């Protein structure tokens, strides 16, 4: 979704359309929330994501308590199987897997949330300007979007990961540098449909300022689409980040991320399978949860697809 997948666009709820009002009615939000709350699987997934995010935030506290640093190596205790001292065992350099997974959550989830935030911000701004003003502004901005969506993203990732040594922040910026394009298209489409409605035309005719109009009237109408895009985006970014780690273009050791932990443990599959299992399961569960949650949100906003 944040990845430039048009699947997302086609699979989007047509938010705002049903309401037809100046902005989605309060009841639309309430109803959506009720629908989401009723979706037990979706809510469980959502809670899991929140819990993981909290764990990620509390990583320094965890280390404060256990006194185990994620990067502390101990060459006398390599490849220890899961046990009392090291709950999830140790890796090839004797580092504690559990500690690294927790700190890795910080990096992996951090990159995911940051990428989503950046893509949405830039994409929304471009999409709104483009859709609202139209004309040459629209032409220029949309050609830019075409360009961004046409570059084989992998070249961009390779070259940018050389230009900016990948840390969580730069990696997010790199992925977002492609991701904003599809968001911009999405938002532009929404804006185009909303701005033709009577209330906008009316507001304009009484001389409301453009910025006020965009922020107060257009943005709320676009919001449901953005929320869905964001919730579906997190899982995808985690996978993109893991793939970049696999290709050697992502987060660089010794900083742990789930992706580089999984990649680094591959060669030890036969003698220490647990090293492969834990980050693998973690990625799977997290992405699964965020996809389920994303779908739940989408369904909540777009009741046509449900029941």
């Amino acid at each position, binding site marked *: 979704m944040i*990845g*430039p*997948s*048009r*699947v997302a666009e086609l699979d989007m709820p047509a938010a705002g359309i049903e309401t037809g009002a100046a902005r989605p009615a309060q009841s639309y939000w309430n109803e959506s929330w009720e629908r989401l709350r009723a979706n037990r699987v979706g809510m469980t997934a959502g809670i899991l994501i929140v819990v993981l995010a909290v764990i990620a935030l509390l990583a320094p506290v965890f280390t404060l308590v256990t006194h185990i640093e994620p*990067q*502390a*190596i101990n*060459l006398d205790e*390599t490849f220890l199987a899961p046990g009392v001292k090291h709950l999830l065992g140790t890796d*090839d*350099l*004797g580092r504690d897997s559990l500690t690294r997974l927790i700190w890795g959550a910080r990096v992996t989830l951090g990159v995911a949330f940051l990428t989503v935030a950046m893509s949405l911000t830039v994409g929304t701004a471009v999409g709104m300007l483009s859709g609202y003003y139209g004309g040459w502004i629209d032409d220029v901005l949309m050609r830019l979007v075409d360009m961004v969506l046409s570059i*084989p*993203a*992998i070249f961009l*990732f390779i070259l940018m*990961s*050389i230009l900016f*040594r990948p840390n969580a922040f730069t990696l997010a910026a790199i*992925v977002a540098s*492609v991701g904003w394009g599809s968001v911009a298209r999405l938002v532009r489409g929404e804006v185009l449909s909303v701005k033709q409605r009577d209330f906008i035309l009316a507001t304009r005719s009484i001389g409301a300022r453009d910025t006020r109009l965009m922020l107060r009237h257009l943005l709320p109408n676009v919001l449901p689409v953005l929320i869905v895009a964001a919730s579906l985006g997190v899982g*995808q970014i985690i*996978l*993109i*980040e893991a*793939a*970049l780690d*696999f*290709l*050697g273009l992502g987060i*660089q*050791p*010794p900083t742990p991320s789930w992706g580089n932990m999984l*990649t*680094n443990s*591959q*060669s*030890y*599959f*036969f*003698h220490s399978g647990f090293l492969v299992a834990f980050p693998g399961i973690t990625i799977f569960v997290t992405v699964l949860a965020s996809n389920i949650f994303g779908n739940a949100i989408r369904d909540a906003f777009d009741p046509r697809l449900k029941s």
Partner: protein
Amino acid sequence: MSGDEDPDKGFGQFERFLEEWSRRDFLKRTGGAAAYLAFMAGGAELLAACGGGTPTTTAKKGGHVVEGNFSDIRTLNSMLSSDTASNQVIGLMFDGLLNYKRNGDLIPALAQDLPKASSDGQAYTFKLRSNLKWSDDKPITSDDVKFTYQLAYDPQYKDVNSPRRGDLSKYIKSIDTPDPQTVVINTTQVFAPFLSSHARYGILPKHVLGSLAPAAINTADFNAAPTVCNGAFKFVKWDKGQQVTMARNDNYWAGAPYLDQWIYKVLPDSVAVTNQLKTGEIDIGPVDPSQFDAVKSAENVSVTEFAVPTFTFYAYQLDPAKKGGTLFSDKAVRQALLFALNRTQVVNAVYFGHGSVANSVEPPTSWAYKDKPKVLYSFDKAKAESLLDGAGWAKGADGIRAKGGVKMKFDMITNAGNKQREAMLQVMQQSWKDIGVDATPSLIQFPQLVSQITNIRTFDMFLVGFNFDEDPDQAQLWHSRNTVAGGFNGFDFKNSEVDSILEQAVGTLDRNKRKELYGQFQDVMSDEVPAPIILFNHGIYGVSKRVQGADFGSFNQFASRPWNYKVWVTDGK
């Protein structure tokens, strides 16, 4: 994108850095270069038991061998190639004048005997074997030899992008061909490593390439599909990105090989080498130390391990104008940091024991190796601390040592994607933290690392691998003239004594005298430690039990292996 993933002197010092280029293993290929590097380390000729073993039954004719590797090849032109993988495939199809035995001694290949040196030591006269034939039945003559070398030394061929031009144009004055079987190479100066470094390039067919304009040789079809060969095998087909298929050359000077085909297959990574050795998809492949046990346990594969002249070292920035220079200019600091490093533990943990801690800058595989130079370094934390204290670096309130207001704090760089190097930097970080030194690892992409070492040189410390040849000359790393831009002495080590020893040692062909000089050299280096060597690597190969006659050793594992034509398979398939 729609988805979740969108997301050798001899053959060249030039490869050395490239050889180190190994991101994730599969990326080693992208360096085009060799990954062999990852498999080497040095002790004596330990464990030289060889995969194929000695033939117990008479050799059978026919069949094929698939050799796997995770380095892709670039070119099949011996004068253009600069990476080990290409050189290896070229070696199957092209012989040079001379070749290496497994211990690094020179043996004649296309030449009939080892060449005679003139009394002044500046000219070598080679006699070619009689009746040498190209695979198209044309005779191989001294003109072919001259032509091959001209591509890299003769100014009229300066548009040929040969990576050998630097050396060859420096050392070759002229080549004479008094008759079709005699080649006289006149050198510009006495240079002891000349034969060992420059007499093994695959000889190219003048009757095929001679008519091309120099610039056209860079892009000739021949480079990707050599129509004419002189090695044990001849070219059949190159499926780009996947494999090179070669067939028996019946015109080979040592006799036709037993095998019908030799296939070089490119694999995704070192784990794939293990997997495919097990499944029998490949018969021969280099084994990563982390995969040693997995391959060893396979019933159908035997494993051979041997010392190689490849090593991993870290270099201190010694340029006094740079920040690192202010930290490391004092010899005591350099020695202290090395004493603080438990290298035995590094070899065991990072290389799974498949490597040897270095005592000297010369590899144990060398005839010039001195196993007990002046200063020996074993792990000694107390000594490290007392050396630092003595040098005036006292521990501050934060636990970090400082002197004159300057903290002992620096960055260490290496190339991203090489697991072993990444791990070593982390061990160094921790070991030095224990003595109050704050070192931070930093991983950069390989081209950037090369730029740093050869040109930009703003690093405090770098860690890379290097691969020495049979000859003990190491001027390219340590001689002060190579501190110029583009040179490999990027850490700015300038020592007039070392310069003088290195110059004398290549200026004589007397091996005893050379050995003595290199002994002095090793003593000085052990005291100065401008760039300590952490370990010498081991080469490890997995060889299918159906393959006989393979004879891997320290110096005959890469390029033109003199034993290629003797390989045969027990099942004849």
